[in-house]
């Protein structure tokens, strides 16, 4: 087993382990903070796949953005510590079905994709390729992304305003 393998396995353990903590933790704040390790672990996995830009963007957006947003959201929650996080609904059949469907679709995607493997050949920087793709074959999606962001921005502003009204 090479060093790369060991690092990969450790990363995978940290990523999955912290994701499990997110789900089973009884304390909301612990769930959010263990997301830090999940997000960062995913970024390391991106590096293993040769997607350097994606790894950077993952940390920038998920750790720097989403996680901070979640933390601010948690801080808005009243009576954080005594919060009872268990739900009263228990739907084993529907839950199993949805979980199985998600698992099936993800594994299908994982097995069908032709991954670039580390070590096969020297990987190339991807930022330039992404930029070129944005401005050639994915020109329309690039612009639609900005419209999507605009809609999200206006929607977010509306939602928050409604909440303060009440």
């Amino acid at each position, binding site marked *: 087993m090479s060093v790369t393998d060991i690092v990969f396995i450790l990363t995978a353990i940290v990523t999955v382990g912290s994701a499990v903590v997110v789900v089973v933790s009884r304390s909301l704040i612990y769930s959010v*903070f263990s997301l*830090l390790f999940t997000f*960062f672990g995913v970024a390391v996995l991106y590096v293993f796949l040769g997607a350097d830009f994606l*790894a*950077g963007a993952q940390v*920038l957006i998920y*750790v720097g*953005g989403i996680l901070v947003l979640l933390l*601010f959201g948690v801080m808005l929650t009243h009576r954080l510590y005594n919060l009872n996080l268990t739900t009263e609904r228990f739907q084993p059949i529907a839950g199993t079905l949805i979980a199985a469907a998600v698992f099936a679709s993800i594994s299908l995607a994982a097995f069908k994709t032709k991954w670039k493997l580390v070590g096969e050949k020297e990987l190339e920087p991807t930022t330039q390729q992404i930029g070129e793709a944005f401005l050639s074959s994915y020109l329309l999606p690039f612009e639609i992304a900005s419209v999507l962001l605009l809609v999200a921005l206006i929607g977010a502003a509306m939602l928050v305003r409604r909440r303060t009204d009440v």
Partner: protein
Amino acid sequence: MEYLREVLTQQVAGYDQLPEVLQIFLPMLLACLLCLGLVALVPLVAIWGERKVSAHMQDRLGPMRVGGWHGWAQTIADGVKLLLKEDIIPAQADRLLFKLAPLVVFAGGFAAFVVLPFGERFIVSDLNIGVLYIAAISSLGVVGIIMAGWASNNKYALFGGMRAAAQIVSYEIPTVLAILTVVIPVGSLSMQEIVRAQSGSVFNWFIFQPVTFLAFWVVYLGTLAEVNRTPFDIPEAESELVAGYHTEYSGMRFAFFFLAEYANMFLVSALATTLFLGGWHGPGFLPGPVWFILKAVALVFVQMWLRWTLPRLRVDQLMHVSWKVLLPISFLLVLAAGTLALMQEGAP
């Protein structure tokens, strides 16, 4: 790091006989320890410097006794004092997160040193997403700061942490947008490529070019806010929040927040040096790394100077500056940089 490996192979007998893993790993570790030395040394000098600078600006002398010459050993004495201080974790605090927070803040700030180009061959690793990497890894600090504030179970600490986080994320957008004005003419995110694009005469430095000259001020202000320095220091406004997010920290745990703060001051100054002040370029009588560190230290000095010159902004003013002043300006700057690049290249 590649350079370090070359040197080791040439100078140390039998180095190429070592297992390959070690051959790769040892230079990495060595480069990392060199950076760690720098991160420990810079605050040592900078804290003493800041006390002297502030003292002289207020017509005082500052520390004069420890070590003899102008109290140069004051920070070392302070370090020893902090090492001997009792470690207090408040009874109500969340012990796990309380201990984890300084680690996240310090390791996040330290890891950003990977891409700092100290010289033509003195860089730990020239990642080709360099600029993005610095923006990304510094977001670990934000999470660490909220963690510290929340775990302390102290009103001032939590409020300081929240304010710091809101401030850092607000100023991140104009800063990165202003950095784009450099990325556009260079055509790369790599720190070394950015420095190389400024080679030749001093007038090739981006600070001496029209659009990037303005961008420099946006970046400088933005990074000043990101390291929570005056006039953007409301997260640790002594008069209202005691010490902000590290109010409850004592002894060595406090020392690490302090260390991280000064390391970050140096980091953002080094970033501005790389982007706008020509990095390690300079007249040949001094080697590149010396120029790089001198320029960065000069910018750190300006940060201190500002601290003792300007009053603190209010929270609402702070948000106003970021979202309603710097953000529109940086959008305009990006478009201006694009226009300039088109004019210079001759549109294809």
